[in-house]
């Protein structure tokens, strides 16, 4: 029995009000089991003094490091215990340098997301054509393409990244390939759905005047699916902008590298600056892509 038939069987068995009640009960039991076992293993503690830690962390977050570019101490002296001055630091210069580095890292992240998304879309296009049910590609090919897409979708970008760093070495290339391979799965599914929801009347219209298959493709299929393709591309690209900020954690460069650096040195002020930049970048991209997608529909 295939997975689909199995789930169907399961859904039928649990339909109706009684079935819903039963499913709710199972869910409640699962949650209780999770909480209960964790409590028994004594893993639900919040640490020794969570409140004080929270206040301290929030306090440091509330003072993002970029403020020092204007308000920092220009003559910060580092002294040893006996009072000798070890080093004098201009906080304003240091933080300005950090901001410049942050800008470069942001650009790297955007490059990884953009090229990775494009790679994913290009890889997914032929696979989506093969999996779309209404185009009726040969069965074995369709099955193969669908498996490739399912595998790509179920492996996390980070896992792809870790493996790829081992293959192509540290740097943005690993990030681009990781983003491309993972989002290929998402793209494939979205593209195939776009092709499956094709307007058959449009195809009949063009076929009925005796158009050749290439003319049918360019005059009926392409105009119908292109807006949906562009819209899915923007959507996944947006996701990848977010995803690629984390890729630095595994050595792909970009903002993630600065995040690891800031967290391992407990520099919450700098982490705060990085997070502000990420939020700004993501929301700007989100706004632009939403505008374009609205205009396309």
């Amino acid at each position, binding site marked *: 029995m295939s997975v689909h038939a199995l789930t169907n069987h399961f859904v039928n068995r649990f339909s109706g009000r009684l079935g819903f009640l039963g499913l709710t009960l199972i869910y409640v039991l699962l949650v209780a089991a999770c909480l209960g076992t964790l409590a028994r293993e004594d893993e639900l503690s919040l640490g020794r003094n969570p409140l004080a830690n929270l206040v301290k962390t929030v306090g440091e977050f509330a003072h993002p490091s970029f403020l020092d570019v204007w308000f920092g101490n220009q003559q910060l002296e580092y002294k040893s215990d006996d009072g000798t001055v070890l080093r004098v630091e201009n906080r304003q210069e240091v933080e300005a340098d950090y901001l410049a580095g942050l800008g470069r890292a942001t650009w790297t992240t955007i490059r990884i997301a953009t090229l990775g998304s494009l790679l994913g879309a290009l890889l997914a296009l032929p696979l989506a054509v093969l999996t779309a049910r209404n185009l009726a590609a040969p069965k074995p090919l369709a099955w193969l393409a669908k498996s490739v897409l399912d595998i790509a979708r179920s492996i996390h970008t980070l896992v792809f990244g870790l493996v790829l760093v081992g293959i192509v070495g540290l740097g943005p290339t690993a990030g681009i390939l990781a983003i491309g391979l993972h989002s290929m799965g998402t793209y494939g599914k979205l593209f195939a759905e776009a092709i499956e929801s094709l307007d058959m009347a449009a195809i*009949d219209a063009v076929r009925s005047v005796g158009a050749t298959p290439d003319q049918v493709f*360019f005059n009926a299929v392409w105009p119908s699916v292109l807006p949906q393709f562009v819209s899915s591309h923007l959507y996944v690209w947006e996701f990848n902008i977010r995803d690629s900020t984390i890729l630095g954690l595994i050595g792909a460069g970009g903002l993630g590298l600065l995040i690891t650096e800031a967290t391992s040195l407990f520099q919450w002020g700098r982490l705060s600056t990085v997070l502000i930049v990420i939020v700004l970048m993501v929301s700007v991209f989100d706004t632009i892509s939403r505008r374009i997608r609205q205009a396309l529909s």
Partner: protein
Amino acid sequence: MNKIAISLQQVCCIADGRALLDVSTLSIRHGERIAIVGHNGAGKSTLLRLLTGFMPAAHGKVEVLGRDLSTGESPQELRTLRCEVGQIHQGLHLVGRLSAVENVMIGSLGRVTGWRSWVRHFPADEVTNAEAALHAVGLLARAQTRADKLSGGERQKVAIARLLVQQPKLILADEPTAALDPAAAGEVCHLLAQAARNSTLISIVHNPSLLPLLADRVIGLRSGRIAFDLPLSAVDDQKLTNLYRPDEAAPAAPWQLPESARRAVFS
């Protein structure tokens, strides 16, 4: 004008083990204007699809515009035939995302080939043709409007303008006025009759008052067989009432095409 445009002999169409159409003989001359009437599932649409090769005949001899369709025509030959056959369907056969004028120019795809037809960069004289056709149906002002923003009547007029550009020898109209109000239906029929001045016109009609606009010969289909084939003057209300009388013996009507037939996108 006495050449034969269409000739059917002992033709039978079968789908899912049932005979959709069973015609012993039918012949239509060039320039004739035919209306096909009959209840849902009587085989009217099947007959039209048979004539364009979208529906194969199980056996029998089908000749359309001098081509023998019953011997298994190649896709290439079918396309050449379809270039000469204009079709207009129940309101939906336009490319929704293209503008009205682009939809009209689709009619010229048989003449324009290669990359020009891919990017819809049509030669200037085809564009002039298309605009003239839109003008003829009174829609030149809406030329740049997307087809899915047009009203039902306007869409049918765009389809007629496409026929004008295609210049087919045979026009098949499958209930061209199904979704229209009486005034728009009359106007569309009028334009359709004008577009078919120099060709053979076969239309499926339900509304008896539109028969004089579109036909001078009426063929009544009942359960896949020809019930009558008469000049317009000989068709009266009694004959039509008999034709549409419910038939208890007839099984459920398969007026939906099998999914497999629609799926073959690139044939």
